């Protein structure tokens, strides 16, 4: 296995030291050093047992240049799911594009800045928070991102503000991204009793082979609510690793939904720390893959405070020679009494060569807890098929509708109507080959 950081030392040098400010240069150097020490994870690493990142490790991706030209806005908005009226921040090949973005719809008090601008305009805030949650200790991809992240978004929602519209962050990769690495960075701070929703879409416009390695870190204050929807529809030749680390205060809610249908190889890490009493985390996801695609979701919920609840539902529909992975870890600290944890992973295999590995892991050190997990791998329910056929619906159509219904159950957890409709439409079209629902 190549040394990770060593392979990228030239590219790092080209960035000119990683600062200013000085603390950032230090952070980046430390990250690169960690990345060099760790190298890319191998399947001997327990967290990567079912996912080989060899295709990423054996390539050396270039830093992306600012793009010349960008996709037309109308086409871009057609390519993503969601409401065009939502405030949006658009990144093309990793660089913020002000002309495609529109942040006017956000209420006063919400601060949205690019990473570059935030480092200039709010240096103290950035020094206090960047890299503090998404630490790169033993996390090669987070270290890689920290060393190289050039652009991204910093979002702050003040106390008690309930933001009515979600912020749509659109990451587009076009043909110019070929052979490049993109390291978007997101820093979110939702203060006490505030509520906010973010949709992050990863799409490709004639994109080919590139590597997205995104890192997000979010603080959800006491009584605050954060929804994060990730829609990963990268180019089918692309590689995608996305890591999100969340820290939750007392009685807060973090709700995450991850949709993954793109990329040759994708890995989504969602790590939530329940630090305040009575916090709740809901993690849902859907992966629809075929051909030789590989999609991996790893969750890690740390119950640190008592009386917190975690709910996880991940579903996958795997066709062709594709390989789905779900690895859900739940840790319950000795202090975290009255923990209520529930985790489910259900996968539908549509072909004999489709494969899934599902691995729940519970580490419980408190005695008064309720933790369950369930995992099923299967084919379509024969009785449900019979029910549809008994109404005159032919076998092929009945199978298609039931496959869609399997996906729809988890899509129903998407609370944003425009996003849910969009994803339902995509899933419906994918399985029934018709538009009309």
């Amino acid at each position, binding site marked *: 296995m190549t040394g990770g950081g060593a392979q990228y030392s030239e590219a790092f040098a080209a960035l000119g030291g990683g600062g200013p400010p000085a603390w950032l240069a230090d952070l980046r150097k430390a990250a690169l050093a960690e990345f060099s020490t760790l190298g890319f994870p191998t399947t001997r690493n327990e967290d990567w047992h079912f996912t080989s990142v060899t295709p990423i490790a054996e390539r050396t991706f270039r830093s992306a240049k600012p793009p010349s030209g960008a996709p037309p806005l109308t086409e871009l908005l057609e390519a993503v799911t969601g409401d065009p009226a939502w405030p949006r921040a658009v990144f093309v090949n990793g660089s913020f594009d002000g002309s495609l973005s529109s942040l006017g719809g956000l209420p006063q008090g919400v601060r949205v800045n690019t990473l570059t601008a935030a480092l200039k305009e709010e240096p103290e805030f950035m020094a206090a928070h960047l890299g503090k949650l998404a630490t790169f200790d033993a996390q090669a991809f987070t270290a890689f991102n920290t060393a190289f992240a050039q652009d991204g978004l910093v979002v702050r929602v003040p106390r008690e503000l309930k933001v009515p519209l979600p912020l749509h962050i659109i990451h587009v990769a076009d043909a110019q991204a070929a052979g490049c690495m993109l390291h978007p960075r997101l820093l979110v701070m939702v203060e006490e009793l505030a509520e906010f929703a973010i949709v992050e879409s990863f799409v490709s416009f004639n994109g080919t082979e590139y590597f997205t390695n995104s890192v997000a870190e979010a603080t959800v204050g006491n009584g605050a609510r954060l929804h994060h929807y990730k829609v990963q529809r990268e180019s089918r030749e692309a590689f995608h690793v996305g890591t999100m680390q969340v820290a939750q205060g007392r009685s807060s809610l973090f709700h995450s939904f991850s949709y993954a249908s793109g990329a040759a190889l994708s890995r989504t890490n969602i790590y939530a720390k329940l630090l305040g009493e009575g916090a709740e985390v809901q993690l849902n996801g859907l992966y629809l893959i075929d051909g030789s695609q590989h999609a991996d979701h790893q969750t890690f919920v740390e119950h640190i405070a008592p009386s917190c609840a975690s709910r996880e539902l991940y579903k996958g529909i795997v066709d062709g020679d594709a390989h789905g992975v779900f690895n859900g870890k739940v840790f319950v600290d000795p202090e975290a009494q009255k923990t209520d944890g529930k985790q489910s992973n259900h996968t539908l295999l549509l072909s004999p060569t489709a494969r899934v590995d599902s691995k729940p892991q519970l580490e419980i050190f408190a005695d008064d807890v309720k933790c369950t997990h369930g995992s099923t791998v299967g084919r379509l*329910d*024969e*009785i*449900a*098929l*019979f*029910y*549809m*056929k*008994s*109404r*005159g*619906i*032919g*076998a092929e*159509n*009945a199978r298609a*509708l*039931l496959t*869609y*219904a399997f*996906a*729809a*159950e988890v*899509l*129903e957890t998407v609370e944003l109507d425009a996003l849910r409709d969009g994803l*339902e439409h995509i899933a419906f079209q994918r399985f029934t080959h018709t538009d*009309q*629902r």
Partner: protein
Amino acid sequence: MLKIENLHCSVGEKEILKGISLSVNAGEIHAIMGPNGSGKSTLAQVIAGHPGFEVTQGTIDYEGSDLLDMEPEVRAQKGVFLAFQYPVEIPGVTNAYFLRSAYNEIRKARGDEEMDPMEFLDLMEAKLKLVDMDTALLHRSVNAGFSGGEKKRNEILQMAVLEPKLAILDETDSGLDIDALRVVAGGVNALRKPDNATVIVTHYQRLLNYIVPDFVHVLAGGRIVKSGGKELALELEAKGYDWLVEAA
């Protein structure tokens, strides 16, 4: 219309139906009664083509064709309908879409043109009234989150839309309160025509107060142990099944 002869059927090693013979003609209503485990639901499901049962002996002729040779969807396209005892939930697929798909596949199979969504909604409006259901139901997922009574009404709604020649109601009365029972029975009666037939599978006589059968058959131990007119149902209500089961 339907002629069952010496039907034997098993699940795994276990024989459930042990030689059923039954004829149903157009215009008739037959009630199949019997204690739990007698095989009456199995008979209903075998007619509809349930994949879990193996027919080991006997024949079912439906309008001159071998019914057992047809896939379940072909049976439905030829006019066979089973109202399920436990209707299946299909999240994410709306009732409207589900019913329109079924309706159009049946039309297609009969060589008729498909109906467009707007036209279909008009048809649905009328059918919904028949079972006293709200139009909002059309946009809800099939049976998902429905109460027991709503599921049963939804079965009758499907029957009203698909207009089968041979309708089989499997324990449609179970779990229904008296109002829902009236609505369901009213729907079934309204759909009755001289050229269609209904088979009601039930444990209790209650539903037969509202849908009056021409024939009543008692199933016990996988066999029809007694057949008679509507008065047989009343006799069963008064005396229970034991005297027949013992006699068999």
